[in-house]
């Protein structure tokens, strides 16, 4: 059985020159994954955004000022995944068949050690009980369970969609999913087609080819955690934003 199952490395490439920061990926993510809306007291630091679009700029004066929008979700690190090794009770693992890093709310005890470990702050804690306006809970996505207060959550490449694709394939007697059936919500929603998603281990796939581009870079690559989310930009200053050598200067960036 093991033999038959193909091993994939799902990942994405995000073209920062195409992203115009409309935030459709964030909304799509929230809708797909039953992420509750904010309580009044919630702010930028306590929000729940498995996909979050950050703003950065070349911090030069008008009109030379340029902005770049950087969508950041879990980077699904492949090598000694920081969050996985620290979780005391195996609520985090890396799926050997997909390379997707999981976060199981039912197992999580909310110690938040994984959040301290995550270099890109892509993990979010449920500070509040999830709550929707009366009646709106009927619009929740049946394929995703709602997280309770006191646990950590993060992007899992819309795994429920992968499951659906698997089930569809299985019903047809196959173990291979049709790539067209598995597209994460953020990828599907991006109006500029800035996000390419697919199996990095398939050298022919668009995502694998894009990842090989000379404009491709990853966030904090030097930490050696082998993220599976790549970014593209023709602008040198943008590519430099991915580095770990945080300079005071680069932090003068205005954040919206």
């Amino acid at each position, binding site marked *: 059985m093991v033999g038959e199952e193909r091993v994939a490395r799902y990942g994405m490439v995000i073209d920062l020159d195409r992203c115009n920061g409309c935030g459709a990926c964030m909304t799509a993510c929230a809708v797909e994954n039953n992420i509750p809306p904010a309580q009044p007291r919630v702010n930028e630091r306590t929000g729940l955004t498995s996909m979050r679009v950050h703003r950065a700029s070349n911090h030069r004066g008008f009109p030379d000022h340029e902005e770049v929008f950087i969508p950041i979700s879990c980077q699904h690190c492949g090598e000694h995944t920081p969050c996985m090794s620290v979780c005391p009770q195996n609520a985090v693992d890396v799926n*050997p068949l997909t390379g997707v890093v*999981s976060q199981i709310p*039912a197992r999580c005890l909310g110690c938040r050690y994984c959040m301290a470990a995550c270099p890109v702050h892509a993990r979010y804690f449920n500070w509040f009980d999830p709550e929707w306006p009366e009646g709106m809970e009927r619009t929740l996505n049946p394929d995703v369970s709602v997280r309770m207060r006191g646990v950590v959550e993060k992007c899992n490449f819309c795994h429920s969609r992968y499951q659906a694709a698997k089930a*569809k394939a299985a*019903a047809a007697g196959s*173990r291979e999913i049709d790539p067209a059936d598995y597209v994460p919500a953020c990828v599907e929603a991006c109006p500029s087609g800035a996000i390419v998603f697919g199996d990095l281990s398939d050298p022919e796939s668009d995502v694998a080819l894009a990842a090989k581009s000379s404009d491709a870079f990853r966030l904090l690559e030097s930490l050696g955690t082998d993220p599976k989310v790549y970014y593209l930009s023709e602008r040198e200053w943008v590519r430099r934003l991915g580095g770990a050598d945080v300079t005071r200067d680069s932090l003068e960036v205005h954040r919206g």
Partner: protein
Amino acid sequence: MIPRNYLVFALGMAAALAGGWLAFPRALYRTVEQPLQFSHAVHVGESVGMACQDCHSLAEDGRFSGLPKIDLCAPCHTDPMGDSENEKKLVESYVIPNVEIPWLVYARQPENAYFAHAPHLVLAELTCEQCHGPHGETDTLRPLEQNRITGYSRDIWGRSLTRVRNAEGEGMKMSDCSSCHRDRRVRESCLTCHK
């Protein structure tokens, strides 16, 4: 002669053991009657000759229909075929007003668990009985035993409180799933069964 305090100690222990083994299990589960009685035996038997799949079907897209909706019963039961009280109730209080029957599901998995029938039926070629037992031959629907604290059906935990003497296909806890997966050398990870 045994010292008094030993006796007292033993007494306390005995009481605790009795409570823990006999009273507690009864206290832990509440039993809820099904809204309606239904005989799988009759429907599967010669007279009707249905198969599991006729009511619990697997769709094109791999989604499992679960329990049949009322419109599946309606065609045959527009008005009572026999003289059973239950059928009368079915027709009068469900079919005619076209209301869904609020069945209680024995094998309902928790919200955080993901289970797809498709791979188990088609790829692994499991039979219904292997997990659901001889449910298809039952003549009545037993009441649902529901855990007062968790709300789970007793079937998830299994009959035996210690889970040592669980029969084949009894118990639907994570450990049961993964032990079967281990036997069949299925490579699994958290997200295989959790959503």
